[in-house]
């Protein structure tokens, strides 16, 4: 009846809670990184970090 996945993740309530909170943590990190990448892709060449090296190198 019970699949190994079910047993591993949702068998008991505290087990499921733990899985939920751990995945929330992981989700937040990956989501932040992923969305920042999307953002940088949308705004390619417009942000300060894209043009910074022109001026930072010129001074050194």
């Amino acid at each position, binding site marked *: 009846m019970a699949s190994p996945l079910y047993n591993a993740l*949702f068998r008991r309530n505290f087990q499921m809670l733990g899985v939920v909170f751990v*995945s929330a943590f992981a989700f937040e990190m990956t989501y932040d990184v992923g969305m920042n990448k999307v953002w940088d892709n949308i705004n390619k060449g417009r942000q300060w970090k894209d043009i910074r090296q022109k001026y930072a190198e010129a001074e050194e």
Partner: protein
Amino acid sequence: MAPLTIASRALARGVARPTCSLNAARALSTSAQLQDAGYSSPFKGESKTTKIPDFSHYFNKGGSANTNLLFSYFMVGTMGAITAAGAKSTVQEFLKNMSASADVLAMAKVEVDLQAIPEGKNVIIKWRGKPVFIRHRTQEEIDRANKVNVASLRDPQADEDRVQKPEWLVMLGVCTHLGCVPIGEAGDYGGWFCPCHGSHYDISGRIMKGPAPLNLEIPAYDFPEEDKLIIG
């Protein structure tokens, strides 16, 4: 008005009565005959609400009960996880508001050019509203500070523990007794002297004589490069 309603009610009752028993019997067995087309409502103007609905689309189509269970728990768990992540970052953003704002943080560090301070001179600068003493000590003064018997002090502290570079002494210019600002190059020990209640500090800012209980405080500071001091 009244006779009309009475008449219409009587009419409705009369229509309803013959089918009544049959109706009850049907209701009993509805679970078995969901799509019973023969059922008819006793009321005029039969509408959708009086029909027993068809629930077959709620049934599970294919797939075992186990995958269903796994899937529903997965969906519920995902919603919980995303909500938790959202709540966490919401709370985090609100807490960030309570920390020091950017203009306060910008004022919290003071940069000092050490080249402007000649050997054997005191400089007082303001840092977060308090005076900070910076002394460029001579070799003779460093030796004098090291010669003091640490064990004999009221607040025992070796000179090396109070400085990062021996020639630069940086400390808060607030007397540890009641908060006056001591005078530099004064007192019995050639260090600082507090005019309010007569506390004498030595050339390392340690309390030697008078009512003050502790040595002058050392703020957090750093030498990021030669001849540059950042306090804070």
